[in-house]
């Protein structure tokens, strides 16, 4: 039987997290079907139909799904569950919100944030903030899985799946979306950026983050932060990289004024290259950094910007 991947999107664009979840799904059970649940989201279904390895896209276009509110999403996914033996969602705040409801109703355990598919029923997942990796085997029956997308390669855009409309499953009417405040940025998203530059408590204030912004603009990088910087109110919560924030694995991660608490390392230690700038040479971040610079960031960042300008960035 098929695996069903729940697409992550904003009703206009399909998120990269979906392509990565499709890769994980293809290793568990084929064919792979993708559910696009949203409102006015035909272009998303179109994009999903082009993902390699996807046989069919199910499009549930209804105002109830516009913001993927958990209660209607649960009903919709359950209405499609009889036709599949694995249901996967990326471990985004959306996936983490609706998936356990589906698992509970199917009376199966959820397997959260898998890092690797060892076999069709066996998976690796992080525990203790990534300080240990558990290999777990799911019981017979349907599998409900969330996927840590940084651990999987995106399925290539090489397919031509059919798009089939599915009917809405109704809204239980116990919850509704009221509003949202989304950070506006011209820069790439943290979780899909090739380069991430993050600031910590050492930045001293929110205003000082503009030093990072300037470098981010040159490198087309996303800007992140440690929990300490978010808790201190320097930047909003959606900047947070770490076990309880976002997990990133870019080609290059530049940690600035970040000491390297376990919590933070859990969110970025799988980056390909890590560079760290910190004035404390004993900072734990240097133990995992490929390139460390012991320096005052208020001196180093303008210098770095100037160096990049010199090199034509």
């Amino acid at each position, binding site marked *: 039987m098929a695996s069903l991947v729940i697409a992550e999107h904003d009703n206009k664009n399909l998120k990269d997290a979906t392509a990565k979840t499709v890769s994980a799904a293809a290793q568990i059970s084929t064919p792979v079907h993708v559910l696009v649940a949203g409102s006015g989201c035909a272009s998303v279904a179109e994009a999903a139909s082009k993902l390699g390895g996807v046989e069919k896209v199910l499009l549930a276009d209804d105002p109830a799904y516009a913001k993927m509110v958990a209660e209607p999403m649960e009903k919709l996914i359950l209405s499609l569950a009889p036709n599949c033996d694995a249901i996967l969602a990326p471990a985004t*705040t*959306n996936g983490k919100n609706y998936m356990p409801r589906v698992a509970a109703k199917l009376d199966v355990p959820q397997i*959260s944030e898998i890092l690797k598919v060892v076999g069709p029923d066996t998976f690796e997942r992080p525990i203790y903030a990534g300080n240990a990796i558990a290999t777990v085997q799911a019981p017979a029956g349907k599998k409900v899985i969330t996927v840590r997308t940084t651990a999987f390669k995106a399925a290539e855009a090489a397919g031509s799946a059919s798009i089939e409309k599915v009917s809405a499953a109704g809204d239980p009417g116990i919850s509704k979306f009221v509003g949202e405040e989304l950070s506006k940025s011209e820069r790439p998203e943290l979780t899909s950026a090739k380069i991430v530059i993050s600031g910590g408590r050492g930045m001293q204030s929110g205003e000082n983050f503009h030093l990072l912004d300037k470098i981010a603009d040159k490198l087309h990088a996303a800007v992140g932060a440690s929990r300490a910087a978010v*808790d201190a109110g320097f930047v909003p919560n959606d900047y947070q990289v770490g076990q309880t924030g976002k997990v990133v694995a870019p080609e290059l991660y530049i940690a600035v004024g970040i000491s390297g608490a376990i919590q933070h390392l859990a969110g970025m230690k799988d980056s390909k290259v890590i*560079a760290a700038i910190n004035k404390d040479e004993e900072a734990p971040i240097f133990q995992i950094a490929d390139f460390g610079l012991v320096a005052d960031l208020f001196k180093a960042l303008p210098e770095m910007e100037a160096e990049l300008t010199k090199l034509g960035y």
Partner: protein
Amino acid sequence: MKVLVPVKRVIDYNVKVRVKADQSGVDLANVKMSMNPFDEISVEEAVRLKEKGKASEVVAVSIGPQQASETIRTALAMGADRGILVKTDAEVEPLAVAKILKAICEAEQPGLVILGKQAIDDDSNQTGQMLAALLGWPQGTFAHKLELADGKADVEREIDGGLQTVEIKTPAIITTDLRLNEPRYASLPNIMKAKKKPIDEKTPADYGVDVTPRLKTLKVSEPPKRTAGIKVKTTAELVDKLKEVGAI
């Protein structure tokens, strides 16, 4: 309105975890245990609701070994009124926890259940949502701000792109994120008072729930280690190195 707050006894967040040599799990012998940090935020939020006159009673529940009663005592010292210990030495998975909590909700009829969004041991982030589904209640997960009104709650949630507000009907499930509040330290007089507050002892069987794990843990291993690279002397050298390895 009654508020139910489930609390989990976990390895203290300051302890560096060590994987056992035989890969059967993480070494918990002689390790400091504490209340899951997200659950402290739940207790704080519930106690604040009581202090504001929005909640009539705060009941702390823990599912675990006898020592989990200490975790309940911590909640009582913070201001919860009474406790329920569901005693078991088994490792209880989120689904089984949700089933036990469902039975407790049916008996206690709370207006809100406030849970931590995840426990820092298994990092599952499931129990609150599962409980909501089993009860057919709405959920406000990853709460950043909670406002109660007649028969409903407005929950501002931490989401990937920023913040989102949902309106949910009560009774409802709330799961807490880091910035909902800053938990208080229990004062000595309150710690003394907590010793006199009642804790009911139950077992999973009392609620008709089988807690046998459904997932089989085949092994627990160390994550791949990263090693320290080199120290560079100047910013220019750093930029050169990044260019050399093709990172920029």
